[in-house]
């Protein structure tokens, strides 16, 4: 801010601040309505979830969450009544609907796949990206600009455009519907962004630090490991968040290249169905659980995240 004078032009007036604050908060609250609605729908009973007019006040139930994690089958009233005391809250809720739990649903395995694939590809992309970014930042690489442009341009391809040959290639190599195949694929997509972001962060670390370390007897690799990496942690963290969010949210490749064992949560959630159509409370519950890690990330790491987003824009 420029000085403390009351008439500073750069400092907005109190009225304009109040109006701005009011409008921004209004916008923020309105955009939160859909998300709020999904979270509360997860705690509604199926009839409440599709009532007209939509219910804001309702009796909360865990039925959606129970339905999300279990598969159930309908039984006769006599059969349900003849059963012993219910085990746990889900058993009780299910029996009220004249059904019994027959097993676990696929939600948890799909969620686990999402975790493995997202974290696996993020670690790999950040690892490769850091090395490559350092290589481009510190050494004279022949055709460096062309290679960097090539790396960046791979991001412009529509995923569906390369999905056909990747599908054929994976079918030949036995990589279709495997976690490894998906990890490699997401790494390839993410590594271009990782190189681009990380090169900027590493460019900002003065070369003198490494040179001093190397005069002290470190090899190039040692000075990279012990001098550059610790300096680049913020950049690495920001890059990792982006890779993680992409891999966690990706749908197009996941739905085309996985069908069972390696399927992630995004293609699975829309297929959660109950009796007579989509089971909205269960879908909402699945969505909530899937979205919560991202919300926590966004709030905890907002500084790195903001830096990463605007950084990419400012540099180009």
């Amino acid at each position, binding site marked *: 801010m420029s000085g403390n004078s009351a008439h500073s032009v750069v400092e907005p007036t109190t009225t304009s601040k109040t109006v701005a604050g009011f409008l921004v908060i209004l916008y*923020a609250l309105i955009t939160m309505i859909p998300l709020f*609605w999904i979270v509360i729908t997860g705690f509604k009973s199926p009839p409440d979830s599709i009532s007209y007019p939509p219910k804001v006040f309702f009796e909360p139930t865990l039925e959606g969450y129970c339905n999300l994690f279990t598969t159930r089958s309908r039984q006769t009233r006599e059969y349900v009544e003849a059963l012993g005391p219910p085990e746990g809250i889900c058993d009780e809720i299910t029996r009220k609907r004249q059904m019994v739990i027959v097993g676990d649903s696929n939600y948890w395995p799909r969620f686990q796949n999402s975790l493995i694939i997202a974290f696996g590809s993020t670690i790999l992309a950040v690892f490769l990206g850091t090395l490559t970014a350092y290589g481009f930042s510190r050494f004279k690489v022949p055709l460096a600009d062309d290679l960097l442009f090539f790396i960046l341009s*791979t991001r412009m391809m529509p995923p569906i*455009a390369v999905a056909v*040959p990747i599908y054929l290639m994976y079918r030949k190599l036995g990589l279709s519907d495997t976690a490894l195949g998906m990890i490699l694929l997401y790494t390839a997509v993410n590594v271009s962004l990782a190189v681009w972001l990380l090169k900027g962060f590493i460019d900002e670390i003065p070369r003198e630090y490494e040179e001093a370390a190397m005069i002290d*007897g470190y090899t190039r690799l040692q000075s990279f490991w012990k001098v550059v990496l610790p300096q680049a942690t913020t950049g690495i963290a920001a890059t990792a968040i982006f890779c993680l969010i992409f891999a966690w949210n990706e*749908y197009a490749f996941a739905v085309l290249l996985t069908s069972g064992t390696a399927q992630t949560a995004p293609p699975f959630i*829309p297929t959660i169905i109950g009796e007579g159509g989509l089971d909205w409370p269960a879908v909402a519950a699945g969505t909530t659980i899937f979205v919560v890690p991202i919300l926590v990330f966004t709030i905890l790491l907002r500084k790195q995240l903001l830096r990463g987003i605007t950084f990419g824009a400012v540099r180009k």
Partner: protein
Amino acid sequence: MPNNPPSILDRSADKAAALTPARMSRSIKGLSDRAVAWWFIAPTIILLLAINIFPLIWAVKLSFTNYRANRLNAEVKDVGLRNYERILTDPDIWQAMQATAHFVFWTILLQTLIGFALAYLIDRKFRGHAFWTTVILIPMMLSPAVVGNFWRFLYQPQIGLFNYIVTFFTGAEPSSFQMLGSVDLAPWAIVIVDTWMWTPYVMLICLAGLRSIPDYIYEAAEVDRASNWRRFWSITLPMALPFIMLAVLFRGIENFKMFDMVMLLTGGGPGSTTEVASITLKREAFEKWRTGYSSAFAIILFVAVFGLANIYVKALNRVKQR
């Protein structure tokens, strides 16, 4: 070997290594810079070649054939440019391009207007602006597929919250309109969801632009007694323009490739009113299994994105230089 005895073979490198102090010779013995550079860069390039470039070249090759991925034993014939000819004369493809153009144009227009306005307001730095900025960001962090899926719930006729709110404020009959089922409204339904999701992104880049304008320029304007209105048009907007254009570029590329959100929201329907290019591509490739034909379409799309993006970047650089 740090204590290398002088070599019998009188090679100059060995001589030099022997003459340098032990510590420096160790760093010479480590990988040379050239080797480090290649070991660091090569894995990434190889991965990109294997998973991005090789498939792309394969797609180019397939685009000249009548190959079908679901018929492994059928004879593959070379058809030359026929796939390309058929695509460029196919009315369905042109309809998909129109749907894509409508989607890209309106999402970019709305997101730029709302995003810039928000950035301008947030730049007033009212109390708590950092917190509310984070709240606004949340939609863009979500999975487009999951977003498309739950907006389908909000758009449900009768029971959906969106319809309820619209009827609450306009007094229209709740059963009189269907956001996803009507040919007129469905293209707007996908524009609304994309705008809800991605306005924060445009806002962030615009905010970076506004914050990059140095204070002294505004101070100079004050000395010249420029009105607020003039200040906005002759300082704020021109100086933030490169950032706005960049946001437009990123959103343009992304929305040209749009697949997941629209797929789950409308699946391209009703009929094919919201069938954007990527959805047509998916239908041709993975439902009709016309692999050769769809590969040709994929190449055309890729060339289009790439070409348009390049022309645009040239224009952007010209604006930056001004």
